[in-house]
């Protein structure tokens, strides 16, 4: 199943610190061709009877043409606020944002013709009308020439399997159908930049897979730039070649996904079942004892793949007890991100 969450730090392990650094170089080279470029972008929300909240705090990054970037972080980290500033919905408190070379606030309408945006929790479709009519209206809003619009709508309907739903009012669509319809609506005008905010939220495994395949194909064919926020690490793994992690409105990491795991030292966990109750397995080299169950019959040891190997740990355990069974848990990327949050502010950079 391609939607699996675990990923192997060993696979992406070698010199991932430098992968992130290389990114920096690529950015400065491609700066003139940056599709998104933000500099010290800040948005402060005033809160009555409370201190002001800097939802986005002096953020600086850029995204080159054709890149696919995952923008991840906890709830309230500032992801959506950044996106709203990139798309001309929210005015920055300070700093600058340029999207497709335009100032999003001043050039909102021009920008709207060049980008496609899906906010997973908001709809751009006409709730009471058959889905097909929403496409007609949006095509007209984007001033697509009717014949070209018909071709494009036909393509999207086929690729996203929306044919059977065209005559249905949007309000009667299932969540999966609606999300695919939202994506189709956002891509109708063949935007050069697609911004997806939680596009797979609430979708079942099959719907997710279908949506991802579609996005991969779109990028391959059109070279579209993609910025994606998500809580679903499967989205990032499948769709993105670069990850930005935002925490408390600040950029906490910029690099590859495997680089992210390497930087924070994601640990594997060895679970051993022993033949009899055994004292806690403290002191196994390069491991951290996590706990035991059944009076020590099952024990958990965490280790860093950079420092030792599963075989070495097993050998050390075998010297102290007789093994009956074992399993290894790979680090979960959400866990990796959580580690970034718990690191001291600004402590980790790619």
């Amino acid at each position, binding site marked *: 199943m391609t939607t699996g969450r675990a990923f192997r730090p060993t696979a992406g392990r070698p010199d991932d610190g430098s992968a992130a650094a290389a990114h920096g170089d690529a950015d400065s080279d491609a700066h003139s061709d940056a599709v998104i470029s933000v500099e010290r972008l800040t948005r402060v*929300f*005033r809160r009555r009877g409370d201190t002001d909240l800097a*939802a986005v705090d002096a953020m600086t990054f850029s995204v080159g043409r054709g890149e696919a970037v995952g923008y991840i972080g906890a*709830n*309230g980290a500032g992801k*959506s*606020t950044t996106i*709203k500033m990139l*798309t*001309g*919905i*929210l*005015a920055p408190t300070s700093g600058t944002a340029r999207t497709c070379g335009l100032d999003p*606030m001043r050039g*909102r*309408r*021009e920008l*709207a*013709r060049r980008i496609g*945006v899906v*906010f997973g*929790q*908001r*709809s*751009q479709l*006409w709730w*009471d*009308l058959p889905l097909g*009519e929403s496409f*007609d*209206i*949006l095509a*007209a*809003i*984007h*001033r697509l020439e009717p014949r070209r619009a018909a071709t494009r709508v036909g393509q999207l309907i086929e690729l996203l399997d929306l044919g059977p739903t065209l005559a249905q*009012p949007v309000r009667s669509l299932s969540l999966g159908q609606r999300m695919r319809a939202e994506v189709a609506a956002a891509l109708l005008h063949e935007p050069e930049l697609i911004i997806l905010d939680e596009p797979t939220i609430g979708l079942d495994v099959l719907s997710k897979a279908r949506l991802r395949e579609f996005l991969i194909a779109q990028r391959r064919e059109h070279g579209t730039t993609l910025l994606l926020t998500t809580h679903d690490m499967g989205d990032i793994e499948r769709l993105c070649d670069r990850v930005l992690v935002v925490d408390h409105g600040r950029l906490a990491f910029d690099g590859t996904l495997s680089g992210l795991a390497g930087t924070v030292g994601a640990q594997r966990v060895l679970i051993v079942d022993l033949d009899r109750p055994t004292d806690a397995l403290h002191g196994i080299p390069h491991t951290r004892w996590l706990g035991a169950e059944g009076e020590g019959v099952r024990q958990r040891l965490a280790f860093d793949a950079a420092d030792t190997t599963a075989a070495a740990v097993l050998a050390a355990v075998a010297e102290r007890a007789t093994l009956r069974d074992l399993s290894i848990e790979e680090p979960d990327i959400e866990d990796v991100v959580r580690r970034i949050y718990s690191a001291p502010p600004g402590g980790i950079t790619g």
Partner: protein
Amino acid sequence: MRADLRTYGLLARAGFRRQATYRLALAAGIVTNSVFGVIRASILMGAVAGAGATVAGYDERAMSSYAWWGQVLLGSVAVWGWSELADRVRTGDIAADFLRPVPPYLSYLAADLGRGALALLVRGAPMIVIGSLYSGMTFPAGPVEWVLGLVSIALAVAIAFLGHYLVNCIAFWIIEIRGILLAYGIVATLFAGLYVPVHWFPDWLRALAAATPFPSLIQTPIDILSGYAAGPGAARLVAIQVGWVLGLGIGAALTTAAGRRRLEVQGG
């Protein structure tokens, strides 16, 4: 230009079709309109009869016509609240509006004109039949006045919409605007001439009403459609409406631009 017409035409059609979806609500609207038409016509005609022959130029027949034309307009010209924009600002759904390469006040206006057209056909037209049968109605003096009357309805729909849109824009600055909308609705319906003709107002109140766009909502179309105003008088009334549409439209554009800079969509 042609592309724009197509866009707004489709948006208007969407407003029309959206309204047409709710057939039961439309049927209920026709019943309500009819019942209130009977009540209003009876009370107003009684008032005129009680006062003697005429009140401010209205005899019983003119009064009946005033009441029923009011019922014709009521579904289309949304004198009562519209809070969709304020709701969308509050929930953050306004974000989707700002992702479109069209000004939101124009796309909402187009949709509202479509809604108004459907309401006129389905809820308004039956009132002409019922009103004529129940207590009698008067009609425009000639074809020019008919055309002016219909144009005047469209303009009234636009003015009603733009007025509400502007009040809704307050939501960019203040979260809760229901009280303001209610107060606006009460003032608007009074000055629109929905309860009694604006011509019945004492001079000072009539002058005050004339300084607002509200008489253009109901009183103006009624005056033209009932034959109370004709010829150059009717044309002048329509010209005033056009002025209000332009003024309020510019106001909507400026307020939207200012509101957008104030917008605070947090989360999601």
